[in-house]
């Protein structure tokens, strides 16, 4: 959105420029729309769909959903290399989410597990799932109903940082707590 900000408050002829920028952003999917979050459709054994997905469709963004507060606004739990156990520095954040979720039994969260890029992709899907399950168990042990919790693993497919260094790896080994509408 930086480009847009620099082009506001200019003369009429620059409206053309704004239109081009807007078109570009939309085309590249950089302009995120925020459609209401849909829970995943119930699993069906088979269903036919034809053609290819629209490559320019944007991913819905749920980052702004859910409660606020110092601990509750922290939605990412980090993990050590090749580990799926909850670190001591994550306990207070998880406890705050557990308390909020037990108070709000209608609220559902999706636990999105991730791995760093080292090793094979499908095995890393397994590692991300293990981390998601660890967070799920931690929340369930603190009284959150199983029906409020779901997991998904993206393995190394959706990194938070792209570098091939320890700092990026540390940011990528994570579980994101996503509040669903």
């Amino acid at each position, binding site marked *: 959105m930086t480009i847009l900000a620099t082009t506001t408050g200019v003369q009429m002829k620059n409206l053309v*420029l704004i239109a081009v920028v807007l078109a570009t952003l939309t085309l590249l999917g950089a302009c995120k729309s925020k459609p209401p979050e849909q829970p995943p459709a119930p699993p069906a054994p088979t*269903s036919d769909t034809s053609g290819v997905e629209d490559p320019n*469709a944007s991913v819905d963004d749920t980052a702004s959903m859910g409660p606020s507060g110092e601990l509750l606004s922290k939605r990412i739990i980090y993990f050590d290399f090749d580990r799926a156990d909850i670190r001591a520095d994550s306990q207070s954040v998880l406890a705050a989410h557990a308390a909020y979720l037990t108070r709000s039994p209608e609220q559902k969260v999706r636990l999105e597990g991730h791995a760093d890029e080292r090793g094979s*992709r499908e095995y890393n899907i397994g590692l991300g799932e*293990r981390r998601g399950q660890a967070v799920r168990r931690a929340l369930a042990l603190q009284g959150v109903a199983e029906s409020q919790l779901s997991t998904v693993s993206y393995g190394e497919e959706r990194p938070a940082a792209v570098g091939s260094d320890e700092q990026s790896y540390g940011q990528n080994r994570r579980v994101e707590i996503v509040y669903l509408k």
Partner: protein
Amino acid sequence: MNERMKKLVTCLLLLSAAASPAFAQLRLTITSGVTDPIPIAVVPFGRAVPADGGLDVAQVIQRDLESTGRFKGMARTDMVFTPTTAAEVDAAGWKQQRNDYVVVGRVSAQPGGQVRIDAELVNVLTGQRIAGPSSVAQPASLRFAAHRIADALYEKIIGVKGAFATRIAYVSVDGKPPSQRYELYVADSDGANRVRIAASPMPIMSPAWSPDGEWLAYVSFERRVSAIFVQHRRSGKKTMVSARAGINGAPSYSPDGKKLAITLSGSNGNLDIYLLELASGKLTRLTDDPGIDTEAVFAPDGNSVYFTSDRSGAPQVYRQALGSSERPRRITFTGGYNARPRISPDGKQLALLTLNDGGYRIGVQDLTNGTLQVLSKGRLEESPSFAPNGAMLIFAGRERGQGVLQTVSVDGQTSARLDADAGEVREPVWGPFLP
């Protein structure tokens, strides 16, 4: 140019790039060949203009042969004569110019709009004229027909069928997190004729070919959670075959094309291998272990499945006999990380991802004596896949921080790289021989 103009130009460039169909085109570079490649002259073919559509058939054949690292093509500027039949080839003259072989040929228009390629091979050391291969194709498929000629020539000289007239599938990723764009492509083995199969703003991974080369199975997160799809390569017809709770991953076709080996976790998160019968949807559990079991692949005889499991504490490759109650048998013992098994077409070799000297590299293990040979030197390689002739592997590597595709001969002697002109390419899978 002021700042605003620069931005406009940048936006227009981005706009045209996004609209261009030629995104992530692949370019092949030989990175290592044999020390003594076979010198060969591929003479420009006699042409049926305009039936050949301007395609330089001889050049396609020469590039195919050179891409193996086993041939050195003669420069055209050094060719004194350009014969188009073996009878016109003066063997002694070509031999004097240090060639071992000469390839000549003709492209001709056929009744009904088809195009025919005839090629002949002359061994100039012996003077032997080897009746050449021919191939008939629609004009649009002439390039593929040229690959078929190269396959036959490679076999006549090396003794192993070439794998040029085959296709690869791979995943391309563009953009920076969290706004990435994932695409699944199919291209000829040399990277040309790229066709987009699927695209999504959510991850696409783990493509797998059906044994007849007509279908691709893959994992897509387009519904935010994982699901396995099978899609017809030409029509685009797409069927979701598994979208169960938890992970739906790592599809791999059985040799008869009727089943997929897949990984499911259920909602409790325990990954195990299952067999899914495609026609009936019938599901059979194959492994049952609290560890991660995934990345199953059938042995070519269809009697067993190899897979990755960390039941011993770290990922290793195991083999499960089908139709047997025996426990899976561990196959890999060299090193602390062995994953993503793939079996050679003759069933005798296991390609895998192995942690070696601090790098994740491609290895080949001899299944009869257990010896592991590491074939690559990078730090972050993955996804090995055998060519259908068993002579080469394609895998994903890194070049300047970007994912590229690489090939290596199974003996480790020759290698090449397929660079994308934009974005990152990964997860290459080599398709079967085609009828």
